């Protein structure tokens, strides 16, 4: 088994999920080659030299000093055609979502994304709003896969020593069809969820905008901040500064009390570090209950007003 792990990095820092990808590749076993692209590739490769892998390939081409989807596609295509890996691995990051499908279509190999577990060429991913798992097999002798955040632990990476070598690619400026401006952050937010001790979080189960008042009331009674899932923010019911999840804040309060949140992975990655998770959901199969310490099955619109009244009385 030969695998190629495509490394992600920003400002000279290795992405956590690339370490997890190496860890996953080590579980699969066989020869592991890491690929680092861009102007910071040298410094990243020196960090990789401490891992038990076969080697690191460095591609530093003037046309692709930093991430560009067209450049990545061309480079990875050429590396794959040269070293012929059986399996090409990344973390399931936003960047991987952007370039992996391009390689899949360009090389006609399947991309099985967002894998949570694997056993002998069977890849397990969540389907149907994370309520079920699908075990997927491929009839192709080469596959692209990406690992869901935290499916493998970066602490489990086996240390060792490995060498690096640079790799020449043949790139033409006409193949770069998109040009990116510098990344930026939107203006600072009105709330600081990340340091909140207690959080009441609302999901689409709140049903109507006017119902958000019960979440604010509960939050006031216990002294919590209010956060939200993405659809609540998308609907314009709460500002994006209150969003928890992969495209919002990551929180780890003493209590995360969620109201009508289903528990999709993109939400869960932002809150699973909470010390105590109490979830209220009317669906006893809601995935949020898998990570909850306390799973309250019921209608939040009935339970929460009574809860507020009881807390106020005592």
């Amino acid at each position, binding site marked *: 088994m030969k695998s190629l792990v495509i490394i992600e990095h920003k400002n000279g820092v290795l992405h956590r999920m690339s370490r997890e990808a190496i860890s996953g590749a080590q579980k699969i076993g066989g020869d592991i080659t890491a690929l680092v692209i861009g102007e910071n590739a040298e410094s990243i490769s020196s960090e990789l030299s401490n891992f038990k892998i076969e080697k690191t390939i460095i591609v530093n081409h003037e046309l692709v000093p930093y991430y560009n*989807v*067209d450049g990545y596609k061309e480079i990875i295509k050429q590396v794959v055609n040269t070293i012929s890996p059986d399996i090409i691995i990344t973390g399931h990051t936003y960047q991987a979502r*952007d370039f992996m499908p391009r390689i899949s279509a360009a090389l006609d190999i399947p991309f099985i994304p967002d894998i949570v577990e694997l056993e002998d060429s069977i890849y397990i991913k969540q*389907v149907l709003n994370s309520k079920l*798992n699908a075990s997927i097999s491929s009839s192709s002798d080469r596959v692209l896969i990406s690992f869901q955040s935290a499916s493998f632990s970066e602490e489990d990476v086996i240390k060792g020593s490995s060498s690096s070598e640079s790799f020449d690619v043949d790139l033409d400026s006409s193949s770069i069809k998109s040009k990116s401006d510098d990344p930026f952050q939107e203006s600072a937010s009105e709330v600081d969820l990340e340091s909140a001790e207690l959080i009441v979080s609302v999901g689409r189960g709140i049903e109507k905008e006017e119902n958000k008042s019960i979440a604010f009331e509960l939050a006031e009674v216990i002294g919590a901040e209010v956060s939200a899932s993405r659809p609540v923010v998308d609907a314009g019911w709460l500002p994006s500064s209150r969003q928890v999840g992969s495209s919002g804040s*990551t929180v780890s309060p003493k209590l995360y009390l969620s109201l009508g949140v289903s528990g999709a992975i993109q939400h869960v990655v932002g809150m699973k570090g909470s010390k*105590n998770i109490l979830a209220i959901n009317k669906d006893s199969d809601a995935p949020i209950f898998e990570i*909850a310490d*306390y799973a309250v099955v*019921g209608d939040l619109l009935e339970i929460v007003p009574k809860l507020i009244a009881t807390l106020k009385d005592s």
Partner: protein
Amino acid sequence: MKIAVLVKQVVGSESSLDISPDNKWIDESNATFVMNPPDSYAIEEAMNIKEKIGEGEVVIVSMGADSVQKVIREALSKGADRGIHVQTDGTAFIDPLNTAKNIVSALDGENFDLILSGLQSDDTGMGQTGVLVGELLNMSTATLAIETDIDSEHIRVKRELESGWFQWVRLESPASISIQSGINQPRYPSLKGIMGAKKKEIKVVPLSFHETKQQVEKISIPQKSKETEIINTDIDSSVKRIVEILKSEVKVF
């Protein structure tokens, strides 16, 4: 500007999910179907771009069983111009490369300037079909667009990156762009729109690629990783227990 929007019909989030007897998917006869929620943002964005430019065509493309004509009609009632239905026999597809090849062949001769898709389908969650179609058609691509600045001269999109970062990207035409949810507020169909949609054309195209490279071996219920206290009683007892937890176990006061 000629714009295609890829729209999928998926099992709704409130649907019952009974595992099928062969253990390979769910029993779809007990399921309820809806338009893939992220795709409604792609439709709205296409309509906005057409309205801003002041001319053009929005074509809805959906692959699936005959029931997908319902989501195509829904999009037509919001103002899209016509539909293309890539017809399957209804078995669930977990092979996005196969889906993309079939969509590409159904688009033969269309020459779209822009293809918009949702960022991910709620059932299989592959998050790639729009990009695959783009690459197969030799288009430029971008994912997770949270704002667009598109006219007949240029294509610019603001992409969402991780942890609250964004980036503007300029793309050569033609381009295939996946739209992040929340980019706009999707409109509801008007009564006039619903009436008008009945007369709009939906072209039915058969599958042309049958080879699949990935398949589901088994569907299973995820294992719990944590010990959870389940509180599933009448409301008063639930409330009493929550108060106890807040006071004595989590100690919020």
